[in-house]
């Protein structure tokens, strides 16, 4: 749990991950995101990082010197795009599809940007904070 945390600018994510791969980080374990829309106050960001609505969280693992590194990338709400890590680690394909599905973050260059968990014609991105947990009409193709 003593993972190192790196704050990476959005346009340097690919180079950072490529550099970490060369340092022996053999696998991307996890790609997820957080919507900080309703967070009361973020205090854990270093001063040089300006907070944005979305944060992409990429977890890599090194086996040679056992340890994980967590990359935190600020993604603005008005341009939620990030370059895909698929070319470096093909295992991010499903993970990035899930983030795209749940948060509406677009991964540029992703080979299959379709929805993974929700139905293909679903509207909205459920894990965004402005997507309500209350009752919503069930969206099924057959009922329309």
């Amino acid at each position: 749990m003593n993972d190192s945390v790196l704050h990476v600018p959005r346009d340097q994510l690919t180079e950072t991950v490529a550099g970490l791969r060369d340092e022996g980080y053999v696998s991307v374990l996890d790609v997820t995101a957080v919507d900080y829309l309703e967070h009361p106050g973020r205090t854990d960001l270093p001063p040089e990082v300006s907070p944005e609505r979305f944060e992409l969280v990429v977890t890599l693992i090194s086996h040679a010197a056992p340890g994980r590194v967590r990359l935190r990338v600020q993604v603005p709400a008005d341009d939620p795009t990030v370059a895909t890590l698929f070319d470096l680690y093909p295992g991010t394909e499903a993970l990035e599809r899930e983030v795209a599905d749940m948060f509406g973050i677009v991964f540029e260059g992703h080979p299959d940007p379709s929805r993974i968990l929700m139905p293909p014609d679903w509207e909205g991105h459920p894990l965004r904070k402005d997507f309500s947990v209350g009752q919503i009409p069930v969206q099924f193709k057959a009922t329309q």
Partner: protein
Amino acid sequence: MTATDAAVRRRDDSAVLRISEDDGERLEAESNASDTSMIMNMGPQHPSTHGVLRLMLEMEGETVMRSKPVIGYLHTGMEKTAETLTYLQGPTNVTRMDYASPLFSELAFSMATEALLGLEVPPRAVWIRMLMCELNRISSHLLFQATNGMDIGAVSMMIYGWREREEALRLLETITGLRMNHNFIRPGGVAADLPDGWRDEVLTLIDALPARLNEFDTLLTGQPIYRERLQGVGVINTAECLALGVTGPILRSTGYAWDLRRDMPYLAYDQMDFDVVVGTYGDCFDRYAIRLNEIRESIRILAQILDQMPTGDYRVQDKKVTPPPRARIDESMEALIHHFKIFTEGFKVPAGEVYAAVESPRGELGCYMVSDGSAVPYRMHIRGPSFVNLQTLPHMMQGGMVADAVAIISSVDPIMGEVDR
């Protein structure tokens, strides 16, 4: 080179079929006689494919070319739900993700919460957690033995595997009160102390199991038909596994020894003496044999836990995190208040973010948690090993026969509750 082999080479290198369901149906409807490939839906065969995992296969005769696991049928928004449940209610939610090994999700969730709280769990709670997890690992791997045997056609194996698993589940029920979805490991420790006679019950199980596992060996391991069905089928190598983020028995089947219990110890695994079981060829047979032998290693660990189980508290005595003992509520006003506050409001967790991971029977199960200082997680994400491991299916299946696809799905041992969450 046969005609089929040539067709394999002509296609693009990718093993993953990246078309939507509608496109698949449209292509199938438009295909003409000269088109030798067809798109098929696989299943139901493995229990996971009964309505919750759909596999689109692009077939050339009986050979699988490209394939795509279509998931989401069991998606119930559990990560969204987690944002409305307090930290005390959280384990009830996550335990329903990987329903074949629920205690591991509870453990990852609790470890993440405790890391944010900066809470040290008492030794007895740590060892009870370890005991429960190893029992759960045994029951989960026995479930695999049952379903794997059934998929391959050794149907009697299903009965035997299910019988032994039931023994393990009965023991879990004795301790936690529930066969599955225990909600036993909670932030701060475990829900209850071990019941009277737990030692005898565990001993009875671990005394009986080795002989049963030897029967499995007789029934399956040495059986020529079984070996023919599994050996050399669904081969994957270490580099592919690492690139795909695969963990657990699939990664170890390639001869790569990586087990969080040994390499990044949590709980008290650094004090345990056990071996990390690895394979050689990365095929379905190795994955079967690894899981069978991991049951034996878990029995070894359980024997050590029985010898060394410490005494003391089974949860922290921090009144802000764990409820007071029932007897105290009748005599102490403060205990009543604490009890009431914990179950109505929950407890506040300092702001921060953390990732905690454990080695589940399927691989690295991680919990990423963000707290905003309130009593419910701001964001809770479970990194389910099955979700990532499922990506190996197209790579293992490519160029194989459709009958092998059944063996391959089974050898990945996916639990769809954890895939879709």
